[in-house]
């Protein structure tokens, strides 16, 4: 009984097919890169002090060089207002505070004033407070991707469980779930999200819950249809005949056979939810004020753009566009690899 050879399953076959897909592999590599970045940001290796005001206010990107007003005097901000030309009048005799000056001077010497050198330029520019836009974008990736993935997982779990019950049992349970589904889909999506946001308030957890609780309907519908189809199949009947309980039949037998659909839906929803988080944060309903996400960056960029400071917008957009595009392409490749029926004839 030792070392039973186990043949290649569906997943390893899918992986083989995926290896032939160049676009899919590149997009997977990009997504993996983002994942590494996310882990590094979460563990504090990069962009941990994104809140530090490292540059001057609205420091331009290094590539463009410093802004013109700073270019004239490099040693800033040491130069304050110029002092008077003549020597000052001695007022010691009449100054009631004079005896304490010496005391204060010694006290002052004990304190050291660190003059923060705020650099005139930053790699991807700075925001209003002089924070590095690059650090913000990296830290923002962490929040945005985390929100997108977690919300998609929540939505997929809700949609799959409800869809499984609705499709497998039908009847009263199915009707009841259809009612819930219809109520959810009859309300315009963004309105529903805003309603949930108003109740749950700001914060990462809230955003995940909002998106998860409103976004499960599409997955529910698909999973329900698949479960209806599979519930009558012979292999499920055969499982019933050997005495498998309904839950075993649903989640041990049918679920693995429809899991590729859930997986593909999950990754499609990740992309969608990242965009929704951006919208929510832009509207001020997203993550809390002491956190940064691509959405809050875009929200800030709105007012900056009028003043001609475009780099925050550009950076946030670049990060988001690269990730979302790579993720979408990866999803397509996954679907092709997992569902061979969709592919045309190979040539």
């Amino acid at each position, binding site marked *: *009984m030792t070392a039973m050879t186990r043949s290649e399953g569906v997943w390893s076959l899918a992986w083989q097919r995926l290896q032939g897909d160049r676009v899919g592999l590149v997009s997977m590599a990009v997504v993996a890169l983002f994942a590494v970045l996310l882990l590094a940001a979460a563990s504090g290796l990069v962009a941990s002090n994104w809140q530090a005001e490292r540059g001057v206010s609205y420091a331009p990107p290094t590539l463009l060089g410093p802004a013109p007003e700073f270019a004239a005097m490099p040693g800033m901000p040491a130069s304050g207002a110029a002092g008077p030309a003549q020597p000052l009048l001695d007022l010691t005799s009449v100054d009631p505070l004079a005896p304490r000056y010496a005391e204060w001077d010694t006290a002052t010497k004990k304190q050291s004033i660190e003059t923060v050198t705020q650099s005139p330029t930053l790699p991807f520019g700075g925001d209003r407070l002089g924070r590095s836009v690059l650090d913000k974008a990296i830290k923002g990736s962490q929040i945005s991707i985390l929100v997108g993935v977690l919300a998609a997982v929540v939505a997929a779990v809700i949609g799959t469980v409800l869809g499984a019950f609705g499709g497998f049992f039908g009847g009263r349970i199915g009707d009841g779930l259809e009612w819930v589904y219809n109520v959810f889909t009859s309300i315009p999506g963004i309105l529903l999200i805003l309603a949930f946001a108003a109740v749950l308030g700001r914060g990462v957890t809230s955003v995940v819950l909002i998106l998860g609780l409103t976004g499960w309907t599409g997955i529910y519908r698909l999973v329900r249809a698949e479960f209806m189809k599979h519930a009558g199949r012979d292999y499920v*009947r055969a499982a019933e005949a*050997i005495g498998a309980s309904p839950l075993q039949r649903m989640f041990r037998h049918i679920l693995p056979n429809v899991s590729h659909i859930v997986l593909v839906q999950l990754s499609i929803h990740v992309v969608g939810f990242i965009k929704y988080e951006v919208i929510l944060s832009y509207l001020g309903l997203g993550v809390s004020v002491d956190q940064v996400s691509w959405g809050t960056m875009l929200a800030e960029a709105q007012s900056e753009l009028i003043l001609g400071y475009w780099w925050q917008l550009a950076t946030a957009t670049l990060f988001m566009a690269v990730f979302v595009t790579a993720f979408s392409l990866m999803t397509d490749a996954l679907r092709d690899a997992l569902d061979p029926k969709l592919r045309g004839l190979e040539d």
Partner: protein
Amino acid sequence: MATLLRIEDLNVRFRLGREQGQAKTQPRWGRAVGDDAGGITFDIPENTTVALVGESGSGKSVTAMSIVNLLPDNAERSGRILFDGRDLLQASTAELRALRGRAIACVFQDPMGSLNPVFTVGAQIAEPLRLHLGLSRRAALARAEELLAEVGLPEPKRRLSAYPHALSGGQQQRVMIAMALACEPRLLIADEPTTALDVTVQRQILELLARLKAERRMSMLFISHDLGVVGEIADQVVVMRQGKVREAGPVAAIFTAPQDAYTRALLACRPRLDGTARRLVVIDEHIAGEAGQAVTAPASPAVPRDASAPVLIEARGLCKSFPIREGLFRSRAFKAVQDVSFTLRRGHTLGVVGESGSGKTTMGLTLLRLHEATAGQVLFDGQDLFALQGVARQALRRRIQIVFQNPYASLNPRFTIGQTLLEPMQIHAIGTDDRDRAARALALLERVGLDATAFGKYPHEFSGGQRQRIAIARALTLSPEVLVLDEAVSALDVSVQAQVLNLLKDLQDQLGLAYVFISHDLAVVRFMADEVLVMKDGRVVERADAQTLLAAPREDYTRRLLGAVPRGYTTTQ
């Protein structure tokens, strides 16, 4: 006789993706017809029916479809197909399109799938008439009505405006034939036209095809896996196996003096209505046996049935009805099974025959409580089967198991064979641990004739016959006393069918199993069953000893059913 169609040195291969690893990827090919030595060659003379016979994978359909190039895009054909002296392989798409439906027409296996569900029958028959003959709408419809009358559809005028779903399978196939005949083709390609139909309907369609062929003086290429059917309808027979022609000749020669070992084996391994064999001959054994001059199968000593064996199942007045919605609020009960009673003794086999829709499968599923019975009682070893709940019900499940018709659908594709076999034992806590269960599973695999390497494989790596063996092994994991075999061999090739039937017989003898053997095939039921129930519209029409039933059927319906069974080539033709 002039030759209408000549197939010369035909090779067909399919591109199956690309080889990995090389700098330049090479297309991978799978050959369907022909081999390195050369392609296949045969003629279809005018006014003749040529039958292509073979098991699945023999390349018979691919050969037929390559005539009018209805093959998928990844197929590559070489050789010559001469129709009226013109090479169809060189013909352009436009030329072929003009030919299809006009001079060469096709009828396919599944009439439901071949008819477009959103068009009326009239519109679909009129289409080729307007396309090829340029008839006006009115004239085309009038002609369509004549055609429907010609193929024997009652009330042809009313049928013109009917949609396909309103017709039965046999009527749909008649419509397909009417469409094929619309432009008076010179060659009709019929690809398993009766395989999806009941025996009685099959009989009607065969007679219709034979009559039409004689009346219209056309040629027919008739593709079938069933030698019985072929023997009745064909003038010439071409036997194919693995993409090669094994034997070709007039039907009388093929049936009375087959030259090829494979043809002889094919003829021998089919259960016969008048046969009394204890075991069926298996093709490979037969071919191997011929070399050693042992043509008859090794006859195992027949285990005599113990007529006083204890009664395992006693069904009384079993009924099952399904509610059918009518209108908004009303619903009507559709009675699928009505008042069925029978007894099954340990070690015996109860055959259940009937046409599709006769309720035989529903009856089988009700026995396992995969459907809940509406009324009636089934006593299993004295216990009321339908009253059991909870633990007692689960315990009884072990004692009655089922094998389904389609082995491709009844195994979970994401489970390895090992998982499939271990699951029932885990659910019922048979065996001490998974090691012990795996040992039992391996023993069962050996028992059904598969080796231990099957344990880690997935269902898609097995052929239909092997999968059916696995399904039987799964049912046996629980050591049941009754096995419901729901058309368990109907989806299998003749040779595989013989192997599985032999296996079932052996298992019955060794384990003392009782079978409820549900089938539409009377010859197979004759081979397996001790007692036979004949069902029609949910009712038992006749119940008798298998021998008596076939020798002296009392009911009209049974006689019709028996009369419709194709008997192959007979000299009285």
